[in-house]
């Protein structure tokens, strides 16, 4: 917390945090007028929103599919397998991605080759960056994300389904009229949490996936802070950016939570 002061100081390492000169809001102004400011904000929000649109429903769909499985052994095996990527670090996931998509002996380009297509250097292609980010994010997180929904599904009163069956409801009808509404509170809470994390594009993933040729679309707040701060030694400037992000995130979490409490009575606290 005390480190937050860095953002308001002209930090000199030998003077320490308290000994350094006050700089007021200089670094915040500098960031807001930074030539890459809008690019970074745009990239960050684009990545988060894409992840939200495609990544958020994925675990719900997986949970619903698993819920329809009758053989409990099959269900358990699929579940165990689906948790695996969650426990593997981004370093490994990105390695896998690079290997599969490698232009030389990568699987995907081998397939393209056998179809008579030219190899693509996927990781260096700015247009494909977001696609890869979203796909790898889903691959890594979908199984883990489904745990919560599966847990919520087991809490649904079975008599509801029995009643629906008597009324002649089919499988899809049961999903849309019983399962989904019962999942709504869970979905709501998780949505609040994701919305408030909109300035977190996923540091590990982005940092490890970006290449010089994709920097234009892949530079996000967190990676920028890291480069400015640790590589270029601009401590105060980076702290100002970090603080900026933290304040907005906190504002977001409180706002989204209030709105949601008013509209749907779903709240984090």
């Amino acid at each position, binding site marked *: 917390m005390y480190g937050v002061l860095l953002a308001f100081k002209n930090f000199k390492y030998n003077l320490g945090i308290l000994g350094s000169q006050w700089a007021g809001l200089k670094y915040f102004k500098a960031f807001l007028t930074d030539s890459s400011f809008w690019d970074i904000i745009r990239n960050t929000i684009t990545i988060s929103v894409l992840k939200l649109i495609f990544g958020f429903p994925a675990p719900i769909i997986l949970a619903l599919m698993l819920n329809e499985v009758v053989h409990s052994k*099959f269900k358990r095996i699929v*579940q165990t*397998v689906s948790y695996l990527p969650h426990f593997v670090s981004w370093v490994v996931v990105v390695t*896998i991605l690079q290997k599969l998509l490698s232009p030389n*002996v990568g699987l995907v380009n081998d397939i393209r080759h056998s179809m008579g297509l030219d190899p693509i250097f996927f990781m260096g292609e700015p247009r494909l960056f977001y696609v890869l980010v979203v796909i790898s994010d889903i691959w890594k997180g979908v199984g883990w994300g489904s*745990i919560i929904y599966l847990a919520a599904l087991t809490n649904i009163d079975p008599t509801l389904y029995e009643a629906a069956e008597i009324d002649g409801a089919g499988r899809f009808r049961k999903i849309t009229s019983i399962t989904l509404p019962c999942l709504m509170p869970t979905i709501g*809470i998780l949505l609040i949490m994701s919305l408030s994390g909109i300035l977190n594009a996923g540091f590990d993933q982005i940092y490890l996936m970006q290449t*010089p040729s994709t920097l234009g679309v892949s530079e996000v707040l967190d990676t920028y802070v890291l480069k400015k701060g*640790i590589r270029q030694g601009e401590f105060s400037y980076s702290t100002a950016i970090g603080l900026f992000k933290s304040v907005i995130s906190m504002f977001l979490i409180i706002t989204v939570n209030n709105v949601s409490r008013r509209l749907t009575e779903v709240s984090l606290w």
Partner: protein
Amino acid sequence: MSVRRKTIGEKIFNIVNYTLLILFSLTTIYPFIYFLALSFNDGYDAMKGGIYLFPREFTLENYKKAFDHPQITNSFMISVTRTLLVTVLAVFFTAMMAYGLSKKGLPGRKYIIFFFFFTTLFGGGLIPTFVLYRQLGIYNTYWVLIIPSIFSFYNAIVMRTFFNGIPDSLSESAVIDGASDLTIFFRIILPLSLPVLATIALFVGVGAWNDWFTGEFFIQSEELRPAATLLNKLISEASFESSTTNTGSSILNVNRELESIRQSGVTPEALRMTFVIIVVTPIIMIYPFIQKYFVKGVMIGSLKE
């Protein structure tokens, strides 16, 4: 689900559903099989491509070289000791904190919780942390791999929620029998909380094992580098001739490393695949056994914030 007449629609639905789930499982597992095949295959042969499921020229040479390699074995030892230490300490400290917070009589409980909650949400990010570590003198020491990882407020809240579910009457009757708070904590609360302790241990352990970041940015000495960081170095070095993910000095070091590997008859690429498998294996061996616990743990943590 009920066992009544199955309509054609339901049959089709079942077939589609099962097929999709099987496909999904395959896409999850396949990359690991791919890497496993490559790690058991001769590196020069692998360069020709075409290895997808099974090794073509089977060899154990990659693994032998990997376990012979001083930098790899050293990083592995760092990671193992770090993971064990962090897991034990984290579970212990988190449990003590959580137990305190679960007591309704704790003075200022609300403020303590707010204090931790606020500092978890609000902060200046990476750089203040960096400066803090330097001033504490743990930068570039083994301790930076341990101390910052042993407490997480989120985990404390998960544990507290679990402790709250243990009936008060148990500890009350122990008090009547003359037990102190510590006795209650060690003899009653902890033994009853195995599921949540196992969950937290798994989370913390996996986190410590997979953490490459600390080793990359808060450690400079090579001999302190954990396995995840070394893996990242080897890989980012290989994939792109870029300087964005590497500092100048480490490129040179890793280059020298790779050169010595190349001369030993194993390709760096094969060694990398092997290293990935080595790093992933302990996790694959452990998590399925703790599955029934962590499924519960996740529920506790998220549904009752």
